[in-house]
C-alpha cells in the first residue's frame, strides 16, 4: 500500500453540541486526486477545516506527511505545503489580482522563485494576466475561482485542498477549471477535492469518499463509484 501523505483516522468534530464529523477516516496518497463528495451540510468543509488546523477534532488522528498535526497552527501547515483554496474563494476584494497572488506566497522568501511562479500562474490562467491590476472584487465568479486556485499554488503546495471549485459556475467554466486541476495534479501536486457536483468530481479524481451527515458512507475508486447504483441514485441524478 502506498504511503499516505494525509490521513484522518476516526475523527470526531463538534460545533458546540452539533456533532459535525462522526468518526471520519480517509487517506490521500502522494500524487492522487481524491474527491470528497456529499450534499449540503454533510461535513465536507468541516473536514477540510479540521485538516488545515482551523478546527480541532475532539478525538481521532490527523496526520500530514507522517506527523500528528492536530495541534499544528494553520500558518505552520501552510508553510509545510498544506494549502487550501477555501469555499467561496476567499478573494481579498480590495486587493488587485497580483496582490492577491503575492499574498499566496506569504510564507516564502525566495523572491526569484516567487516571480517565476507568478508568471507560471498567469500562464495557467491567462484571464488573470489580463486582469492583473484589477481589484479582486471586480472579477467574475469563474475568474475569482481561478485566482483562488492560482493563489493557493503560489504557496507551492504539496497537498492542495479545494473546497467546491465548481460552486456557482457555468458548466463551461467548471470544465475549464477542472481541466486545470488535472494539469496541476499531473505536475505533481496531490489534491483533496471537495465537491457537491459528484459527477464532475468523480470524473476528475482517482478515488473518492462519500460523506453523509458527518459519516463516510462509501469510498473507493472513482470509476467504480460512478457505476455504483447507490451513488448513482443519490448523487449522480440517475437510476
Amino acid at each position, binding site marked *: 500500500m502506498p504511503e499516505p501523505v494525509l490521513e484522518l483516522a476516526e475523527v470526531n468534530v463538534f460545533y458546540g453540541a452539533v456533532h459535525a464529523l462522526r468518526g471520519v477516516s480517509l487517506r490521500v496518497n502522494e500524487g492522487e486526486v481524491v474527491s470528497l463528495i456529499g450534499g449540503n451540510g454533510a461535513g465536507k468543509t468541516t473536514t477540510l477545516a479540521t485538516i*488545515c488546523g*482551523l478546527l480541532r477534532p475532539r478525538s481521532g488522528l490527523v496526520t500530514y506527511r507522517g506527523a500528528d498535526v492536530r495541534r499544528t*497552527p*494553520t*500558518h505552520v501547515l*501552510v*508553510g509545510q505545503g498544506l*494549502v*487550501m483554496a*477555501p469555499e467561496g474563494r*476567499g478573494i*481579498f*476584494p*480590495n*486587493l488587485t489580482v497580483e496582490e492577491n497572488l*503575492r*499574498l*499566496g506566497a*506569504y*510564507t516564502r522568501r525566495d523572491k526569484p522563485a516567487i516571480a517565476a511562479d507568478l508568471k507560471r500562474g498567469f500562464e495557467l490562467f491567462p484571464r488573470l494576466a489580463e486582469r492583473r491590476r484589477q481589484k479582486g472584487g471586480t472579477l467574475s465568479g469563474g475568474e475569482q475561482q481561478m485566482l483562488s486556485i492560482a*493563489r493557493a499554488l503560489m*504557496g507551492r503546495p504539496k497537498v492542495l485542498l479545494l473546497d467546491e471549485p465548481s460552486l456557482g459556475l457555468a458548466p463551461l467554466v467548471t470544465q475549464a477549471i477542472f481541466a486545470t486541476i488535472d494539469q496541476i495534479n499531473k505536475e505533481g501536486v496531490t489534491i483533496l477535492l471537495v465537491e457537491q457536483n459528484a459527477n464532475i468530481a468523480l470524473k476528475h479524481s482517482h478515488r473518492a469518499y462519500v460523506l453523509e451527515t458527518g459519516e463516510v458512507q462509501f469510498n473507493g475508486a472513482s470509476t467504480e463509484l460512478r457505476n455504483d447504483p447507490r451513488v448513482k441514485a443519490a448523487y449522480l441524478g440517475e437510476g
Partner: protein
Amino acid sequence: MAEVSLTTEVLQYVTNGVAKGSTYALMAVGYTLVYGVLQLINFAHAEVYMLGSYFAWYQAKWAGYLPDSKGARAETVPLYMVALFVAGAMAACALAGMLIERLAYRPLRNAGRLAPLITAIGVSLLLQYGGQVVFGTEPKLFPTFAETVVYDAGGVKIPNTNIYIVVTSLVLMLGLTFFVNKTRPGAAMRACSHDMRTARLMGVNVNATISLTFAIGSALAAVAGVLVAMDQPAITPLMGVRIGLKAFVAAVVGGIGSIPGAALGGLLLGVSESVVSGLWKPVYSEAVAFVFLIVVLLVKPSGILGKSVREKV
C-alpha cells in the same frame, strides 16, 4: 509689545494647532490600526498613552533627573538620555499593549463585538483607577527634556517643543506607512484587516500579527505621551482621557481603519481647536471635536478618507 496682525495671530494658532494635531494623529493611528484588524475600539489606548508618560517619568527619576522637593525643575536631560527614556517607554508600552490584548481581548476573539468593546472600557477604567493607586492622584512634574527655546518666524512664535513634536510625529507616521505598505509583517497586517480567516490560509500567523498591531500602536502612544508631557509637564493618571477621546474622534473623522485618515483627522482637529480657542474662547474648542464628529457622521459616515464600501483598512 507691538500690535499683532490678525494674519499673524491666525498663523500662530495654526502652527500651535499643527503640533497639537500631530499628537492626536500619533494617538489616532493606534485606534485605527486596532480597529482595522479587529473592528475593536480599544478604549484602553488612552491609558497606554498615560503609561508612556509615567514610564518615561520613572526612568528619569531613577536616573536622577527629577525636579527637587521645592519643585524647581532639575537640569536639562542630555539628548541621548531622552532617546533612551523614549525608547524605554515605547518598549514598555508595546509590552503593555500586547498584554492587554492577550489577557483582555484575545479570550473574547469569537464572542462578537459587544463583549470586547465593554471589556475595553473596563480595561480603560482599570488602568485609570489602578494608575491612581500606583502612581498617586497628585500630578507629577515631568523633567525638562529640552530647554525651551522660542523661535520667531515673522512674528509667529514657534517653541522648539512644537518642532520636536511635529518632526517626531511626521517621521513616525511616514515610517509606519512604509512599514504597513512595504514590509512582510505589514502585508500580514493588511491581510488580517481584510479578512482574518483567509489571511490565516495564506500562512499568516494571525495572533502574532494582532500582537504586533497592538505593540506598534502602543509604542506610538508612548511617544505621544512623552511629547505632550514635555510640553505640559504635569502628568496624572487621568491624562489620557481627554486626548484619548479627541484622538478617537480624529480617527473616526479621518475614516477609521485608514492611516492617512488618522493623520488628517488629527491635524484637522488640532488646528481647528487651536484656532477656535484662540480667536474665540478656549472652552468652545472642546466642542470642536464633537461638531466635526457630528458633521462627518451626517455627511460621510465612513469618515473623510474612509471607504464607503464594506472594507476595513
